């Protein structure tokens, strides 16, 4: 077995209450690394088409990769993979916290949960003893994620759900410490198995091919991160909400259910405002991560808890026309404690507000008015009254109440907080990402509209190319499993320090924007490991992997996800954006919305897909995607 892997998977039958350890498939690990990639392969191979996502046939897969369990910065994350109850297609989410570290200490690369229990249960997995205990969890059922973890013991490694998962809220997540595998409803799948919590323990140490080289290089990376303007400065000081001022200035912060991209009170929910007025510390970070992007704030009546990050402040702030960070912090806490995704939640709330404003639904909540929202979040988590409808997500709500044109989702997954009308590549990424409208499956906006080396985000140049490269990279990153924020370090310090109006900066941006097909070709070159994740993989596994290799692996994962979606009926007709994004301009002089129709054909071509958006046999063969 390659180094870096524990070499075994654990399969648990929740109905029979049995378990078995199996060897990790080394061939698949070479093809898919681990994490999301390995998990997707398992899901594809182990399930029939058309299964009920909340039925016993949907396996819930927790998967780590070879970097997990090491002290590499941003490396202790796990991926969760299953069929999504929200989209009906591929479901996956990644999470920090400490559970990935615990899994590797227990000597488990992948945990597969099959079937379902009839009564609430929790698992205690002792990796050293090779034992799994099934423990009645009736006493924990109904409790929030904070209290549940408190009862289970703060010094252990847990993955838990809250009431939202128990009640099958379609965007419920799985929580480790104060981090959440939030997207696509993985928490509802855990709830459908009546599984409240998983605790892992063990004392296995990670074996590496070249531990000395890893140690020395990691020391250098930590130093580089410390000096980096994003990883060592802005994320550390302001958290992810430090980007509010930028998206506001670029007219892409979702405002009033994406009716606008600019909100006059936006700076009152910014990371800088948080630092000045709300921050009480930065304790809530993932294990071994020096970036510490998590914020701690004080919530009245609760105490010190994790503060909101960018997606939450944008979607529950400007998107609801609320400029009150204390309120947003409270709603963030409620969502975390109930165990649900704040992106989907914010979108559901704004959709309900717009329906209310148009007289299509008596939602009892209004734009610009915080009253009633806390109670409604509780109603959603417990599926009480109108909350039962909101627990279904925006796509299903629009089928019941209308409002298709302003239902902000792609493939059923609610949109993240970067308006694609001012970020065309991000729009292509939203439309084509297999799990739906999400920003961290590529983060194209960083290269076009918010980062230090941006190109014109509103022309067609490179907008069908960037998403391919970025999606492939994100697939590889989520298979290692690393934090996507590690990619922010790719743009070096000196670029951040350049005057954006200087000739040199403009020349760099011009060169990037006009690099055409060279951009994609250059990413596919297979050479020596250069970037930190490439070197870490090499030092740990002993298998040299360059950026080109990772583009290939990422492309493999992406295409397998695509084939899974096609198998489940989530076809190319869903490669689109909400009608509001396509038809309603938000920029002065713009006559329409995002030009997706002009970009999709090139995107499909870049992917090696047919004009109808189907991966060709040649592409699948080249990438060794066996379906």
């Amino acid at each position, binding site marked *: 077995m390659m180094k870096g892997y524990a070499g075994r998977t654990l399969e648990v039958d929740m109905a029979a209450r049995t378990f078995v350890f199996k060897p990790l498939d080394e061939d698949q690990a070479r093809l898919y690394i681990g994490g999301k990639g390995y998990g997707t392969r398992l899901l594809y191979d182990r399930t029939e088409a058309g299964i009920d996502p909340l039925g016993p046939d949907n396996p819930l897969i927790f998967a780590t990769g070879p970097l997990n369990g090491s002290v590499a910065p941003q490396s202790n994350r796990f991926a969760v993979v299953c069929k999504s109850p929200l989209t009906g297609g591929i479901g996956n989410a990644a999470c920090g916290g400490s559970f990935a570290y615990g899994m590797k200490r227990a000597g488990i690369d992948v945990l597969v949960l099959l079937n379902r229990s009839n009564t609430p249960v929790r698992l205690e997995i002792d990796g050293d003893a090779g034992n799994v205990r099934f423990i009645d969890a009736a006493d924990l059922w109904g409790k929030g994620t904070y209290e549940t973890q408190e009862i289970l013991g703060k010094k252990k490694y847990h993955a838990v759900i809250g009431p939202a998962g128990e009640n099958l809220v379609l965007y419920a997540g799985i929580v480790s410490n104060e981090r959440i595998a939030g997207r696509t409803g993985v928490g509802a799948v855990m709830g459908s198995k009546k599984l409240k919590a998983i605790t892992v323990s063990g004392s296995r140490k990670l074996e590496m091919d070249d531990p000395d080289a890893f140690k020395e290089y990691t020391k250098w990376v930590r130093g580089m991160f410390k000096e980096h303007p994003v990883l060592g400065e802005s994320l550390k000081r302001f958290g992810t909400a430090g980007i509010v*001022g930028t*998206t506001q*200035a670029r007219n*892409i912060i979702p405002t009033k259910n994406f009716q606008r991209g600019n909100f006059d009170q936006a700076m009152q929910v910014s990371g800088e405002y948080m630092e000045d007025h709300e921050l009480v510390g930065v304790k809530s970070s993932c294990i071994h991560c020096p970036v510490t992007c998590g914020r701690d704030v004080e919530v009245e009546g609760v105490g010190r808890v994790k503060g909101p990050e960018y*997606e939450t402040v944008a979607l529950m702030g400007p998107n609801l026309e609320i400029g009150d960070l204390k309120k947003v912090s409270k709603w963030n806490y409620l969502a975390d404690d109930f165990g649900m995704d704040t992106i989907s939640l914010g979108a559901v709330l704004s959709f309900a507000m717009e329906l209310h404003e148009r007289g299509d639904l008596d939602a009892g909540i209004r734009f610009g008015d915080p009253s009633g929202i806390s109670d409604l979040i509780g109603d959603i988590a417990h599926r009480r009254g109108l909350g039962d409808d909101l627990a279904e997500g925006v796509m299903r709500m629009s089928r019941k109440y209308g409002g298709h044109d302003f239902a902000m989702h792609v493939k059923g997954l609610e949109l993240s907080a970067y308006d694609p009308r001012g970020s065309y590549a991000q729009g292509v990424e939203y439309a084509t990402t297999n799990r739906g409208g999400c920003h961290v499956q590529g983060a194209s906006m960083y290269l076009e509209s918010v980062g*230090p080396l941006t190109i*014109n985000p*509103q022309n067609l140049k490179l907008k069908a190319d960037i998403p391919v490269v970025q999606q492939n990279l994100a697939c590889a990153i989520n298979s290692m499993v690393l934090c996507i924020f590690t990619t922010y370090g790719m743009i070096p310090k000196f670029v951040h320090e350049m*005057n*954006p109006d200087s000739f040199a900066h403009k020349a760099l941006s011009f060169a990037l924007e006009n690099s055409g097909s060279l951009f994609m070709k250059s990413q596919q070159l297979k050479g020596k490991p250069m970037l930190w994740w490439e070197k870490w993989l090499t030092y740990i596994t002993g298998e040299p992997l360059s950026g080109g290799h990772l583009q290939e692996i990422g492309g493999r994962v992406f295409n397998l996800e695509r084939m899974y979606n096609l198998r489940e009926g989530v076809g190319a007709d869903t490669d689109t954006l909400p009608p509001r994004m396509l038809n309603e301009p938000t920029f002065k002089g713009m006559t329409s919305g995002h030009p997706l129709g002009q970009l999709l054909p090139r995107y499909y071509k870049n992917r090696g897909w047919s004009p109808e958006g189907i991966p060709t046999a040649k592409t699948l063969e080249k990438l060794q995607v066996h379906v």
Partner: protein
Amino acid sequence: MKITVELTYAMGKALGANRFEVENATTVADVIEKTKARFGDKAAEFEKLTKIATVAVNGVLMSYRKGKKTKLTDGDVISFVKAAAGG
């Protein structure tokens, strides 16, 4: 003619105002000059802070239009932008 000016948080903190209006400015250059004048003895500080920021006109960077010569119309929003990373 009224133009709304939005400063970055750091600028607003240093200069004591985040969002305000300027009148009778027809180009981006006019807005910058009027903003500088508005801050009087803090003008040098404002100038220093603008070196790491650029300007967007209604969300579009001025470099994609006509730079500081970009013509403005009533109701335009001029924002100072700094690169950032979120999640």
